[in-house]
């Protein structure tokens, strides 16, 4: 319609809506005016006033009908009718408060159960990047046979940036890195999260700094020259109290002075949903952040640590961008065969990046959401069943309305409005339940070094989704009762309050609903058991060491670079540290490692070629997780060496390189021979040879869903690193060693920060107890709620049947039926439904088990024990749900039953 049209009509609509009484009065006055003139005309023609009045009304053809016609022209009656319907619905629902509360609660549970997983799903998959026009931001990834989402090295990034044409800008950033921060030189540094970004990062992502400015391209040209930093908004507030004079000030990062040039805008965290960088630093300053002094970030083409993002040009197509990048990757492979042979590249969208096959988080969210929707379905089914019986109890009311001329469509609308009111009330309560679930997730405190952001929250997106699903469930559970309720034989409908014969078609609908509920809740129960068993299985192996270590081991992380140590000084520091701590009373042993088992910082990888091993034809090198360790590592952690020997002090820099592998590794590469004494070559066929001197027991290294993996240990002396974790095994409570350890550190260097000190129990609790516990709790809640709903549905159905057949039962008992017969009669139907539901539920359970196993747990097959637990439990509970109302039926005194109605 033309805007000019609206100019004239919009005020009229608003007036019709909000000045309804006034508009009505004016209509009356106008018609009255006409009638009066008409009457006058009649009188002047010689009629008596009464006759004239009657004639005038006749000429009008029914005043009230005309008024209705006029009201219909206002084009807002759909809305005013709706308001009337809502009022009416509220009144009629208030008359049956118990039933209303029950339906509202049912829907609240259903909607509430979906809110938590939706917030997870949103955060992990759908929430757009916190930048303007997030849709055009894509990720450029390097691909190899093993990794379809690999990063790029700095030289590769530079070449790509200079050669691509499909983008308005191509930026690169690192992962979140720990950095030692101190506002002034004299203060002991604290650990914060830093993001290394290319000079065009803020500009190309259209992120306008809140104050100050972003980086310039020339601040990212010369390695180590421009020590400038942009602060994260939250960090700026917590550390500098939101003081805008911070721009231009100097802060210290990893012992270097950096000038603050700006503050990132609020809400801009990074492109990773879990990260919240405290500071942004140009890539050219990466010298202050490298962990491995041997690597050269600016020239090594295979030091792939950068995530590369591009902002697609408006006229560029994704396909073109892909083929462009692929051809660049081909050039790389031709020009730099030693680092890029067999390597490709492609462009990934946000969705592709967030649903990488190797990531278990989003898969859990998907499974969790699916299950939650089944609960919502169960809830809706339940509500539909209740509304069906309600509609039947209102047969007479509906029949009267139809008889006096209400349109069927109008009545359906009225009934749907009722279910909408119910669903929206339920949805509102559901949001409250969802809040509780999300609060549970937010309570997770992850004992990582840099605080990890829990991105799950109840925001407007989740609220909108909850609202949407409430409306949807209103339609779902209201439509069938509304359609059925308004299709009736009027004569019968007017005669009796409840005209349906059991076994009629209508009744089958409700039976199917109950059977479906039983089936779906059985499936959900099975799913929560599968989840429980999966975690149990993955946590049952390789954790003996941790159960012992959690009560005895103290962890403290160090990074001597924060105190400006060079490699020699670092080595000396660590040696003295371990030696002195060993001498303290109460210390049984002490060790150093990169990352403790069950740690959260991710493992370093080592690439190698085993000697005398038939490499798979398509592989140049293999890789494995690794740890660099020192001191009494295996004794401190309680991991037995099963064959060969432990590292010795003589395995130092000058000595031949050695490694210890885990049992899985040994079996993997030398299934029929002894691994001890074999050699692997680092990095490739021509790399340094490393002799395997021992085999350590397999342990659980820390991924919740992971199975067994290869693992390699190397001595720190031969694999120098700067950031290490000190692990001290105590005779008793490890926290009692905190003071002595701090004393040792202070005596070595009073400026050396201890980054994160905790007992091993903290890691253990998070990885083994709390994390899986929350997952089990969430899925278990779904199962429990579904079961509860199914029980309620079943109970409701049988109880309703009993109340409808009171008279029949009375007659039966009066003519000699025993209570047992009545019980059988009433329970029979319920139990048949349970049986049918159980069969379907079993089939669905098998399917969902297979789905979960393939997605989360690398297991196959069906676990019968799950069903041995779930099915009998289900049967028992449902039996009880039919038995209680059935027993009540047997207690009906025949006289009372016969008098009923």
């Amino acid at each position, binding site marked *: 319609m033309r805007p*000019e049209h609206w100019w*004239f009509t919009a005020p*009229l609509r608003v007036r019709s809506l909000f000045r309804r009484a006034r508009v009505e009065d004016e209509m009356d*006055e106008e018609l009255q005016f*006409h009638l009066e003139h008409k009457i006058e005309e009649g009188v002047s023609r010689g009629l008596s006033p009464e006759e004239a009045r009657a004639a005038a009304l006749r*000429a009008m053809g029914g005043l009230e*009908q005309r008024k209705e*016609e*006029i009201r219909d022209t*206002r084009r807002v009656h759909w809305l005013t009718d709706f308001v009337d319907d809502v009022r009416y619905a509220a009144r009629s629902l208030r008359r049956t408060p118990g039933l209303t509360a029950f339906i509202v609660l049912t829907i609240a549970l259903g909607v509430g159960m979906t809110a938590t997983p939706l917030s997870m799903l949103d955060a992990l998959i759908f929430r757009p990047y916190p930048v303007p026009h997030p849709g055009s931001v894509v990720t450029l990834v390097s691909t190899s046979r093993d990794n379809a989402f690999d990063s790029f090295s700095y030289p590769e990034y530079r070449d790509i940036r200079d050669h691509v044409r499909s983008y308005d800008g191509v930026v690169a950033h690192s992962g979140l890195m720990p950095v030692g921060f101190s506002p002034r030189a004299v203060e002991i540094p604290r650990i914060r999260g830093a993001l290394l970004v290319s000079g065009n990062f803020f500009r190309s992502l259209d992120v306008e700094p809140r104050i100050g400015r972003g980086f310039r391209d020339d601040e990212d040209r010369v390695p180590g020259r421009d020590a400038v930093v942009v602060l994260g908004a939250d960090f700026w507030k917590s550390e500098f109290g939101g003081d805008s004079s911070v721009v231009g000030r100097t802060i210290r990062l990893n012992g270097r002075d950096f000038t603050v040039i700006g503050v990132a805008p609020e809400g801009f965290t990074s492109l990773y949903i879990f990260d919240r960088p405290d500071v942004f630093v140009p890539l050219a300053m990466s010298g202050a952040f490298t962990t491995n002094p041997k690597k050269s970030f600016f020239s090594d083409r295979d030091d792939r640590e950068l995530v590369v993002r591009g902002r697609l040009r408006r006229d560029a197509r994704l396909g073109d961008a892909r083929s462009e990048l692929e051809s660049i990757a081909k050039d790389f492979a031709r020009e730099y065969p030693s680092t890029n042979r067999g390597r490709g590249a492609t462009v990934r969208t946000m969705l592709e990046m967030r649903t990488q096959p190797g990531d278990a988080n989003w898969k859990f969210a998907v499974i969790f959401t699916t299950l939650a929707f089944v609960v919502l379905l169960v809830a809706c089914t339940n509500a539909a069943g209740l509304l069906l019986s309600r509609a039947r109890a209102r047969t007479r009311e509906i029949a009267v309305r139809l008889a006096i001329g209400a349109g069927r469509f109008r009545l359906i609308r009225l009934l749907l409005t009722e279910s909408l009111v119910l669903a929206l009330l339920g949805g509102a309560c559901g949001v409250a339940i969802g809040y509780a679930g999300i609060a549970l997730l937010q309570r997770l405190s992850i004992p990582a070094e840099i605080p990890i952001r829990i991105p799950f929250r109840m925001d407007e997106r989740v609220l909108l989704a909850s609202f949407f699903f409430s409306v949807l469930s209103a339609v779902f559970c209201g439509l069938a009762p509304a359609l059925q309720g308004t299709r009736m034989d009027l004569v019968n409908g007017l005669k009796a309050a409840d005209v349906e014969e059991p076994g009629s078609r209508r009744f089958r609908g409700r039976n199917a609903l109950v059977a479906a509920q039983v089936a779906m809740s059985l499936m959900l129960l099975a799913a929560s058991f599968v989840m429980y068993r999966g975690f149990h299985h993955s946590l049952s192996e390789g954790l003996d060491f941790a159960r012992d270590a959690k009560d005895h081991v103290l962890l403290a992380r160090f990074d001597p670079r924060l105190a400006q140590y060079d490699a020699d000084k670092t080595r000396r520091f660590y040696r003295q540290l371990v030696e002195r701590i060993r001498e303290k009373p109460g210390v049984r042993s002490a060790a150093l490692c990169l990352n403790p088992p069950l740690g959260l910082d991710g493992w370093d990888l080592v690439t190698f070629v085993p000697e005398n091993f038939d490499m798979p034809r398509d592989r140049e090198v293999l890789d494995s997780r690794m740890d660099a360790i020192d001191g009494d590592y295996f004794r401190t952690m309680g991991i037995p060496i099963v064959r060969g020997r432990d590292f010795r002090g003589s395995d130092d820099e000058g000595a031949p390189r050695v490694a210890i592998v885990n049992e899985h590794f040994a079996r993997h590469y030398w299934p029929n021979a002894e691994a001890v004494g074999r050699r692997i070559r680092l990095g490739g066929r021509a790399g340094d040879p490393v002799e395997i001197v021992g085999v350590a027991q397999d342990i659980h290294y820390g991924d919740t869903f992971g199975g067994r993996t290869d693992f390699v240990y190397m001595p720190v002396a031969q694999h120098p690193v700067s950031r290490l974790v000190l692990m001290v095994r105590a005779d008793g409570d490890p926290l009692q060693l905190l003071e002595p350890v701090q004393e040792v550190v202070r005596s070595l260097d009073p400026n050396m920060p201890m980054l994160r000190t905790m007992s091993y129990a903290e890691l253990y609790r998070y990885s083994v107890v709390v994390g899986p516990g929350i997952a089990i709790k969430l899925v278990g809640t779904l199962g429990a709620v579904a079961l509860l709903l199914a029980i309620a549905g079943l109970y409701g159905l049988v109880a309703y049947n009993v109340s409808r057949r009171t008279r029949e039962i009375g007659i039966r008992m009066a003519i000699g039926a025993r209570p047992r017969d009545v019980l059988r009669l009433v329970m029979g139907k319920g139990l048949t439904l349970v049986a049918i539901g159980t069969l379907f539920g079993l089939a669905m359970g098998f399917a969902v088990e297979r789905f979960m196993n393939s997605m989360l747990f690398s297991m196959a097959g069906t676990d019968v024990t799950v069903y041995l637990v779930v099915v009998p439990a289900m049967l028992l509970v449902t039996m009880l749900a039919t038995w209680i109302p059935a027993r009540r039926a047997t207690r009906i005194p025949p006289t009372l039953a016969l008098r009923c109605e």
Partner: protein
Amino acid sequence: MSKPADLVQGTLDLLLLKILALEPLHGWAISLRLRSLSSDVLQVSEGSLYPALHKLEQEGWIKAEWKQTENNRRAKFYSLTRLGRRQLETEAANWQRLSAAISYLVQLSEA
């Protein structure tokens, strides 16, 4: 909305627009005008007059104002809007096309 059976669909709208194009009138006056102008050939039931007027108002073709009549009574006067004038032109044109076509058909000799 019920239409008088003896009026071609949409004709009432056209008549009302035309009458109001001459001068603003209230409902009663419109009904009198309808009767006299069409010399009782076109029977418009008084009942369908008001729904039709309200429909035109809601379409934005005519607008209503409460004013005093000559004998000092309050009445709702309708007048044409800019949109209504345009609508009248189209409808009048349509009508002429239609009536020309029909009279041509009617006059065809049945040879």
